[in-house]
């Protein structure tokens, strides 16, 4: 098992949650979502996001509308659907639980070592 694989797997696991979170307040097109994710250093290359967006859209968690752009091709503005919002709520709860759980486990481990 390669460390890179595990890292990528961890990152990709939370990626869907993060994409939905970015879209929680307002609609955004790909570049904006990417900016947010890149800023957080959650993704390094952009390629990763496209299959995810398509999958979320196909799962009816996201919807999009076209908007003309002055500089470039028309943009897809993504937004959460009702299902998406519920999904996000559930994920948020799960994430918080997970975060706590991970914290407890990792801290107890470091304590044990000391």
């Amino acid at each position: 098992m390669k460390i890179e694989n595990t890292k990528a797997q961890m990152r990709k696991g939370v990626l869907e949650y993060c994409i939905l979170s970015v879209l929680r307040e307002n609609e955004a097109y790909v570049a904006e979502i990417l900016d947010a994710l890149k800023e957080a250093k959650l993704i390094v290359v952009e390629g990763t996001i496209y299959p995810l967006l398509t999958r979320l859209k196909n799962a009816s968690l996201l919807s999009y509308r076209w908007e003309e752009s002055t500089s470039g091709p028309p943009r897809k503005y993504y937004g959460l659907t009702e299902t998406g919002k519920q999904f996000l709520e559930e994920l948020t709860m799960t994430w918080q639980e997970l975060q706590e759980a991970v914290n407890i486990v990792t801290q107890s481990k470091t304590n044990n070592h000391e």
Partner: protein
Amino acid sequence: MNKTVNINLAGIFFHIDEDAYLKLKAYLDTIRNSFKNGQEGQEILQDIEARIAELFTQKMAHEKQVIGINEVNEVISIMGQPEDYQVDEDFFEDKEQAYTSAKSKKLYRDTLTGNIAGICAGFGHYFDFSVIWLRIIFIILAIATSGTFILIYLILWLVIPEAKTTAEKLEMTGEPINISNIEKKVKEGFQHVSDRMKDVDYEKYKDQFTNSSTNFFRNVGNGLVAILTFLGKCLGFFLVVVSGLTLLSLILGFLFVSFSGIYENPFLFRNYGFTEIFIGNDTIIPNLVTGIALTLFMVIPVFIIFYLGLKLLITNLNSIGKTAKITLLALWLVSLGILSYVVMNRVAHNAYEEEIVSTEVLPIMTNDTLTIKPYYDKSSGFSLNESYRYTYKKGGENVFQKKIRLKVLPTHDSIGKIVTRKKASGKSSLKAQENAEEIDHEYALNGNLLNFNGIMSSPGKGDIYEENLILEVYLPINSYVYLHEDTSYFAYCCNNLLSDSTYGEVIKIEDKAKVTSEKNKDTLLIEIEGDSIL
């Protein structure tokens, strides 16, 4: 200077350098290929194209700028490698698969380097085998199976997919699919494609600037070239078929001869000319080597013709390589050397010729009648219709049998005589004499009956020493002779009394010189008297 291509990316128009275009295309093809799900993949790809278009638009300082390879590289580094697009749950398995599939090759048809359908080229990649040899094998198979294999080829054509995308091309050659390899591949293909593009453009501009009359002559020229090319191909095809068949028969012949045991005993196929070379071979070169040399001596030139035919037939035929050419030439020269040596040695066997003469008194006087009757050992399988026979005994003595030659001649002596002449050749006078002495022949004289063995026999090497035995029967003038019918089989030409009508009857011996002066030369010199005395 760089040629540019116009592309439409997500509805936006771009000028892009040719090499940059090829790289971008390869990149998008690879990504498209990595999405197995068609519908979803299409959509994802559209998004990606749109994003790339956006990135390009941002990078363009002003309208007239052209996208170069640097811009494409930047975009690829932003977008990520094809494997970055993989987000499936079974991520690890996918990785594993990608790893193994990159290692193991897939069988595709290589239409870029292939000639017809790229099947040989594809197999060449798959088995890591030189394409040229595979093509030769395919053609030989096609000829050997009298065309059935062509059907198999057509089936393979249908069954094996063509390597269309860069990823498939990489899979075909067994290289892992990643950007650096794709780039390498694209660069390889670049020359090919750009050459073609140059040609196209050239033609196009030419069309624009040449008037109709020059166009006409160009068309005529093109037509002539096409006809010549076609004729060349026909000639190539003819050469390939003829030389291919020849090659096949030569090789089969060699195998047949090699396994027939002819090298151990060359007498096995004594009646076939080619075995001559193996007989009497007392050089240090074994017969097997001579056989191989003989085969190579014939096969190599035919192979060259075959290859030239192939070259005519297939324009971009790979060279068989310098090493192969030199090896072929060297092999041929060595074969020539071996053959020359063996043949010269063989010819030397007949350098000297000797004759051993023995004479015995035949107690036949004037008015006596001699009966001449041949006999021979029928159990040896010898038939009087053949002139010689080789009896070949594995591990034992070989026997060469040959019909003797009989002459019946008049003599002025008062008593008859029998002269046996044994003739043979050899490498030296002494050898020739020895060989002559080895000839075995007998006859028996019982009163007025001469029984002679019709067959002489000689051991060892057979008639490479040109063994011959002539039995001369001299009879006094005015004696009589009765020749048994079978004697006709041994009649030997010239200056003797034997002719078609002299058998089975008693004939009188007369002085030939006298008769010829009185009668026509062609007239029979023998007077027939009375009935058979037997």
